[in-house]
């Protein structure tokens, strides 16, 4: 008998439950997964992602499209786009996921038109998320820009599944306008991110321009706070997600202070499921003649071990 593979349970429909504007260009979309999707999400990990088909969505009116995206965003969409989750919740016997997104092009501009009740077609969960290293209970979470969603998800995951770990989060953004979370205040009037404080994760914030939090790059802050401290490097690990220059800096910092790190990478993806080879990441490979080979961001990643990634 020849092998017959099962029909995939990972292509499914989700219904929009909430859609909030966080900042002019940042939104929070809450989706309720159908039964098939919920089943597929039973053992999802932070850092995994879904591929969203925004092709069928309508284009907003010109006045509702950021001016600098007017030309680029009107292009037809053919391919799906990858998005990770900032939160995932049980909702009866279904799952609800939060997607925080930044409006940058044709798909994300179309996402802005979604209203509760609308449907989306999704494939997921895809890829490999963060692998929680139980032997390293000092978890330092680092997010840059739109790297924040999986880091937020990871913070909640660690606190609920590994309550004994010591979790701290560092979040960087270019400026106040580009903070993809709600901003709140603690009882003392201090400024906090409910996304992290609600799960009890202490956090600090940097902006490149100093418009909010500490001025500078998030990795500079991490270095300042971590390196001199009483800090058991073999018990610590950095989990990071953000733009490539930030991940490069994290990887250098980790090497310098001698801690492990896991990096959630990004590549332009045509398929997200290993068919097209568009999402290659250069990685160390002792097996390869010249010491390196490509791995696929969508299948082998997006989260890779920091020591494996080669940043040119």
């Amino acid at each position: 008998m020849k092998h017959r593979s099962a029909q995939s349970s990972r292509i499914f429909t989700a219904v929009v439950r909430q859609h909030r504007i966080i900042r002019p260009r940042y939104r929070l979309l809450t989706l309720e997964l159908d039964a098939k999707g919920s089943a597929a999400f039973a053992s999802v990990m932070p850092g995994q992602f879904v591929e969203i088909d925004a092709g069928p969505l309508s284009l907003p009116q010109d006045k509702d499209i950021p001016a600098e995206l007017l030309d680029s965003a009107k292009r037809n969409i053919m391919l799906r786009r990858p998005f990770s989750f900032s939160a995932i919740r049980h909702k009866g016997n279904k799952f609800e996921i939060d997607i925080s997104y930044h409006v940058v092009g044709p798909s994300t501009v179309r996402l802005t038109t979604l209203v509760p009740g609308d449907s989306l077609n999704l494939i997921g969960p895809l890829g490999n998320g963060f692998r929680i290293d139980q032997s390293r209970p000092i978890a330092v979470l680092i997010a840059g820009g739109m790297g924040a969603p999986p880091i937020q998800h990871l913070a909640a995951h660690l606190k609920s599944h590994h309550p004994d770990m010591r979790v701290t989060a560092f979040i960087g953004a270019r400026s106040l306008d580009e903070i993809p979370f709600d901003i709140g205040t603690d009882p003392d009037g201090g400024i906090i991110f409910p996304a992290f404080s609600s799960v009890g994760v202490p956090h600090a914030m940097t902006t490149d321009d100093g418009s909010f939090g500490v001025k500078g790059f998030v990795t500079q802050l991490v270095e300042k706070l971590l390196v001199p401290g009483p800090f058991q490097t073999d018990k610590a690990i950095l989990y990071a997600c953000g733009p490539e220059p930030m991940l490069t800096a994290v990887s250098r910092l980790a090497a310098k202070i001698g801690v492990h790190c896991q990096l959630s990478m990004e590549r332009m993806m045509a398929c997200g499921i290993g068919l097209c080879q568009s999402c290659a990441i250069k990685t160390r490979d002792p097996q390869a003649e010249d010491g390196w080979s490509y791995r696929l961001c969508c299948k082998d990643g997006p989260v890779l071990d920091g020591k494996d990634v080669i940043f040119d």
Partner: protein
Amino acid sequence: MTEPNLSIEFAGLTLKNPVFTASGTCGYIDELAAFMDVSALGGFTTKSITLYPRKGNFTPRIVETDAGMLNAIGLANIGLDRFLREKVPLIAQYDTAVFVNVAGRTIDEYVAVTERLSQEKAIAGFELNISCPNVKKGGITFGTDPQQVETITQTVKKVAGAKPLMVKLTPTVTDITVTARAAIAGGADALSMVNTFTAMVIDIEARRPILANRTGGLSGPAIKPIAVYLVQRVYREVAKLAGIPILGMGGIRNASDAAEFLIAGATAVAVGTASFIRPDCCQSVLDGLHDYCRRHKIANIRDLTGTLQD
């Protein structure tokens, strides 16, 4: 009406239906198997295999365009040895006609890959990639010169053993019937068409091409009307008389698209880019062709080929 018969004769093989995957868009086979029943397919075309492993181009390797995309993967593949070791045993588990897409820098490389695989029971046939726009040597340079098309086809055919040899044509020639004739003169058992169109997208802020390779191959619905025209032309002017089947492709995403290619003269069709958006697209093309045949009272889908009226 009894159920329509979707089976076809293709280059000496009897296939259960005319739906293939297109090379480079569905991996080696197991990648797609996670999303659909691969054994339901009439045929499967592998990613291009070269004699030695190829890492492929730097990233970005793709960029989306209107109703299409450019790719410059650069024939990234694990090479013949690992393919034999790791993929051929997997391929053997599926009940579909697997064509290995063969590429190389020199004719010798094409020969070496084909010769070695001609012994493998799990492999149904070969597709000669002489039309890839994304590599410096080989690829499209072979595909635009009729003399070279004939020579390479002839040389590879000799080592293909009993397995059919399909030649994949590039659309970027002045007269595609010339290269089609050359492939047939060289002994091609089937033609596959079309490969992608060389194209470029420029990042106007940085003023550089988006793709690391600068140029890439355009695929997807954008090219479909050109591909249909070319299939129709090769069918009428060359393939029909020669009795050589065509595997038609270029922007197929549903059964209606597939029917266009069959009516134009293709014996089978391949789904490429569309599988990226709907990994089970081949299945829905198949289901839709079944419905189309029922609706049009076509007892055998092979009778649809080339039925375009004047």
